[in-house]
């Protein structure tokens, strides 16, 4: 494993913008990159990338899959990665995210392929549009994938080994009231902003309990200061490790949205999208234990757990491919303070190498 090469690959990757859903240019770049490494690459009809490597120094014909997502959140254009070898971190210039989520993972996979002396057949899957609802994984052509086991690289710290995820539900909510001049005839208008605010005020948001969360991530209402705002759009979501609970929370949120519409005389349109259904993989299963052991080889004590976040792993499990989620060495993702820890990127890479060499 070559740390310099790992860091240099990572920096190259983050400089190519891929804010959801504009990640196709980046996928093209990764495809070209991985073609050089001696592989068969293919894009499915949604634009997800599947790269297959034949076994190396191994009689094992059973493929194993690894998955990262191509897209990032905003603001992700013009990323300037700053490598601080003394502090051992890589950060952005503070004006953008870093993109370590998830390009640190991609860089580690590339380095794994270069460094491993032997491995079984590998399938590297780079999915599109994960950050906006795992759309790539939802539309992935699973007929192109032979593996029955997959590792998704998308957690913060290398010791994290996620064996279960929450059910994740999106709600797109639009309130429509009636515009009117705010000074001359406000009584003839109906404010969609007030309706949305009424709903928010009543709603429980943030961490609801140990296994559930709710959020309103986007709120956009009104056109001009001097017009009663006619249309307001909210983007909300809820998650729970308990599938039934998740449905219950979504139901409750939608009832609150509807109640506020009724009380205010506005119209409300709610589009619900179940992004992924939760799953739990048994702790003692081979997929979990082989990775845990590889971590231990490199001095890491695995933190096996369930999370309320959503990753592409949920879609793999839905389709019958056992998938767990592992860490890549980043912090403060989804913010401009995002950074990567070089020693953790090294550990993650070494663990992957140990894993695939052990399976060869």
């Amino acid at each position, binding site marked *: 494993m070559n740390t310099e090469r790992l860091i240099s690959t990572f920096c190259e990757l983050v400089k190519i913008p891929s804010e959801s859903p504009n990640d196709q240019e980046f996928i093209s770049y990764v495809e070209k990159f991985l073609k050089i490494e001696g592989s068969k690459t293919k894009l499915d009809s949604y634009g997800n990338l599947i790269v297959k490597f034949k076994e190396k120094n191994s009689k094992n014909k059973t493929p194993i899959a690894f998955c990262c997502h191509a897209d990032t959140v905003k603001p992700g254009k013009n990323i300037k990665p700053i490598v601080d070898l003394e502090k051992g971190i890589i950060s952005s210039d503070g004006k953008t995210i870093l993109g370590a989520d998830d390009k640190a993972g991609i860089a580690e996979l590339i380095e794994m392929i270069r460094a491993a002396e032997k491995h079984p057949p590998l399938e590297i899957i780079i999915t599109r549009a994960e950050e906006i609802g795992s759309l790539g994984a939802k539309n992935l052509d699973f007929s192109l994938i032979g593996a029955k086991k997959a590792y998704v690289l998308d957690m913060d710290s290398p010791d994290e080994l996620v064996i279960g995820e929450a059910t994740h539900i999106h709600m797109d909510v639009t309130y429509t009231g009636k515009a009117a001049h705010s000074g*001359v005839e406000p009584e003839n208008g109906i404010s969609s902003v007030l309706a949305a*605010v009424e709903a928010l005020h009543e709603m429980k948001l943030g961490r609801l309990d140990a296994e559930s969360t709710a959020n309103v991530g*986007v709120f956009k209402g009104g056109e001009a200061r001097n017009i009663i705002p006619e249309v307001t759009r909210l983007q909300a979501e809820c998650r729970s490790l308990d599938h039934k609970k998740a449905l219950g929370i979504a139901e409750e949120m939608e009832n609150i949205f509807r109640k506020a519409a009724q009380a205010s005389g506005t119209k409300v349109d709610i589009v619900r999208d179940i992004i992924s259904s939760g799953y739990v993989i048994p702790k003692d299963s081979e997929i979990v234990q082989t990775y845990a052991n590889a971590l231990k080889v490199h001095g890491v004590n695995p933190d096996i757990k369930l999370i309320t976040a959503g990753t592409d792993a949920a879609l793999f499990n839905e389709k019958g491919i056992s998938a767990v989620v592992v860490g890549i060495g980043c912090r403060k993702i989804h913010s401009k303070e995002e950074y990567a820890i070089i020693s953790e990127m090294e550990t993650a890479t070494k663990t992957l190498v140990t894993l695939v060499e052990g399976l060869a």
Partner: protein
Amino acid sequence: MNRDRMIKTFCQLVKIPSESPDDKDFIAYMEKLLSKEGARTNVDDFGNLIAKFPAKDSQSKESILFCCHADTVKPGKGIKPIVDLKNDRIHSDGTTILAADDKAGIAEVLEMLRSAKKHPPLEVVIARCEEVTPSGVEFLDYSKLDSKIGYVVDFDTPDEVIIGGPTYIVFNVKYRGRAAHAGMAPEKGISGVQCAAEAIANLKLGRIDDLSTANVGVVKGGININSVPETAEIWAECRSIDDKKACTMAEEMKKIFIDAAKKFGAEVELELTTSLKAYTIPKDSKVVKAAVESIKKNGLKENVKYTAGGTDATHFNHGGVQTAVLGIGARKMHSTEEYAVISEMEKTANILITLVEDLA
């Protein structure tokens, strides 16, 4: 009064584009036109046109001011006025505004100048940039004006006499909380949107009393559905014909905005601007009585009232010229459905003629 001459003039005027702030060409055109009508013209440093006419067949030394604005909103290029005598209206071809606001007013003032058999000294001001902030008349040198009373010709219908306008206070509020992943660790985040919702839920909005209103026109918060939204922006306003009330309302609103930030531990940036100061003129003042008399003489019932909107009259009144606002006979202004009612344009022209003849 020559209806056809007025309509022809109006159509000529609207064909010269003058979208704010590109109204200088139109001002140049008006300068030539008013010069031809016998005025001594002067364009001030900001570009406002002041045209002075000596008294005609009158011993009166008391100058009367008339003001219209040169600029229009968008889309105002390539206006093609369609005169529909059968249906008593003039409208655009639907792809642009008509610019009856305020060129119907200018056409009516011109028709008054051409038709009045006698009048006192007159000052005609064609003002720049009324549709934007700051308005052109804010830069007028009021010490150079001869008139102590006047009329802004810019309202809706010929029966209207506006005798008061609001104090108008504008709020730009920015909340900054803390971003976090909504599914993984929402408890680490502070939602700017929740601050905004908290504030808005506590504000008194809409019609507060006969003279006062408040509005939240625009709310913009958050960028990703799966992030706790760090920032939220609010564009709000309050108005009152009673200046003290407006200031009290603004203080209350300011406190509510700040308290909401405190409640969630977020930062708040608050920009408060007094855009207009209230004015009222007594119903029994000369300027109002003369207008009312003229409206009655022309067969209409006068509609004397306050406006909640901003007009240039605000600045004239604060500049020492007691100014009322009269209507022009137009509908659906600031839209591509704008149209002028021909019979109302005639009525307005006649009202202006009667007005100046009676004051001569």
